[in-house]
């Protein structure tokens, strides 16, 4: 569906995108992650035909965007990171305007608009003025707008930025729905965990270069040498510590008053084995779990500890 080959974008002497190569299959949701200034927006603008690449190709459905940007307009839905709306325009008129801009005949616009406003949960705001909508609503409206021409590929630049947690969840729901509709989605964010659960594939880019690509699990396995495990016994702390200290794969044990954290470098089976040993030794455990937030650490590691 989408193939980026050796893409380079230079602003003067500064290289914003540096020989980036990515490929995304049909129906996938690809998370595009990187710290501020990584080149996400630049890459996405090139994909959308809003910016010339310095060199390299972006091929969508077999057609090269860099050579023929106008041919692909119909296939791409683009939502920029920052956008505005017009004054004195109602939601339906706003949608109607963009439907017209995509050459959709008057007759077909009504049902398309109703359907899209339903999907992004704005049907009740149909007759409101767009500039009176809240930020989250505007964001959803812009998403609906990018869908008027039923594009196959959606390029969404930080669609969840500036939204409160509730609105983020709603945005994710909408994206899941779109995935079920069979759209290929590229979505950028500078927060990896935010994308982890919904993306089938993640590309981490840093300073214009591809730092890692693959499914979330693959990236985790490839990049994290250690996993942090958190154990909380009801009692018999000393006995548990002794067992843990005997394990070759366990390192850097940190004792707190009621619980223990350690770094683990083995496989899932080996970790399960440790749990088994603790249980066999009759230690009453309240919890035994891998600590969350590793994803963030992975991200920090990959991107050299800059940003988030």
């Amino acid at each position, binding site marked *: 569906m989408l193939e980026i080959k050796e893409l380079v974008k230079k602003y003067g002497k500064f290289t914003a995108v540096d020989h980036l190569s990515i490929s995304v299959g049909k129906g996938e949701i690809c998370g595009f992650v990187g710290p501020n200034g990584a080149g996400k927006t630049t890459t996405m*603008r090139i994909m959308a035909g*809003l910016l010339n690449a310095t060199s390299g190709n972006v091929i969508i459905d077999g057609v090269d965007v860099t050579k023929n940007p106008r041919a692909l307009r119909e296939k791409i839905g683009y939502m920029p990171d920052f956008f505005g709306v017009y004054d004195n325009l109602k939601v339906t008129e706003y949608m109607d305007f*963009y439907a017209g*801009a995509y050459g959709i005949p008057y007759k077909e616009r009504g049902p398309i608009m109703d359907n899209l406003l339903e999907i992004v949960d704005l049907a009740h705001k149909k007759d409101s003025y767009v500039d009176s909508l809240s930020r989250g609503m505007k964001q959803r409206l812009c998403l609906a707008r990018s869908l008027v021409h039923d594009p196959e590929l959606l390029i969404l630049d930080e669609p969840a930025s500036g939204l409160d947690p509730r609105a983020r969840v709603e945005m994710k729901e909408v994206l899941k729905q779109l995935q079920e509709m069979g759209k290929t989605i590229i979505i950028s964010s500078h927060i990896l965990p935010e994308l982890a659960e919904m993306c089938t594939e993640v590309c981490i880019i840093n300073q214009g270069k591809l730092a890692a690509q693959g499914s979330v699990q693959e990236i985790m396995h490839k990049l994290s040498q250690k996993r942090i495990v958190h154990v909380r016994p009801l009692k018999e702390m000393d006995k548990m510590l002794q067992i843990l200290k005997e394990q070759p794969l366990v390192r850097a044990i940190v004792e707190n008053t009621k619980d223990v954290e350690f770094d683990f470098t083995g496989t899932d089976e080996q970790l399960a084995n440790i749990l088994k040993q603790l249980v066999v030794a009759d230690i009453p455990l309240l919890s035994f779990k891998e600590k969350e937030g590793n994803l963030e650490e992975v991200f920090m590691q990959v991107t050299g500890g800059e940003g988030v």
Partner: protein
Amino acid sequence: MMNPVLRREAITSLRGWKNYAVLTFYLLMMTLGAGIFFYASVFQSYRFAFDPQTIVYLYVVLAAIQMALVVLSVPALTAGSISGERERQTLDLLLVTKLSPFSIVIGKLLSSMAFVLLLIISTLPVFSIVFYFGSVGIGALLGMIGFTLTTAFMLGGISIFFSCIYKRTVVSIMLVYIITGVLCFGTLILAALHIFVRSYQDPSMAEMIVMLIPNPGVGFFSLVDSQIGTNITQEVLYNGGNGTQSSFILWAAKNIWMLHMAFQLVVGSIFIILAAGLINPVREHKQKNKSTQTKKKMKKEKKGEE
């Protein structure tokens, strides 16, 4: 299908206050002009009577006010059309659609021309006074409307062009006013200099005509002049020229306004095409890079000279 940009502009401008303000001001000026004219020419004359010959000058006054208002308002209403979209961050959303940069620009131009048409129609009642007395015919009115619209086309085109370059609308408006000023007075000065330089050899009529075609003031004057049958333009040009003239040149001297309309259409189209090129994102950057490079080169060369 109607140009979506034009359609949207129509919807939003009917809801905004800006166009109503311009329209009100416009009607006020026209009525005021007519009022002052009546006061000065009719009620001040001790017979308190209408002289149809005088009414002809009411037409001239009204046409002149209309022209001045269009020249002032078109840049003010159009010079923010693209920079406004940029500032509001809606331009990218427009550029990723199937609309070509050209149709975006045309939509903007048509919406300001539609507004000018609205202005013209709204002042028809005032103009009807003139027709009532039969001083000027319908043909003259159509000529007037045509001339006003081509003026709006050229000024609108130039305004949109600057709107693509400058972020600040005021800068674009001022530049269009300056260009209008240069066309009005610059060409006159040029023509005067030409007469001065060539005084021993009498400048040819054709040369004078060519120099005055771009002048909107001369264009407007010649329009009204030919409509009310005074033919001052032709006489002035004829006296300036020497020898016998071909019939085409005589026609041109009488109808400089038609040539000016053609000039406006050509210039307007050129600026529109340039504007479309400027907002085309994919071509835009190549041009930008080139122009900055050439600027840098020029700077270097200047430094070298110093």
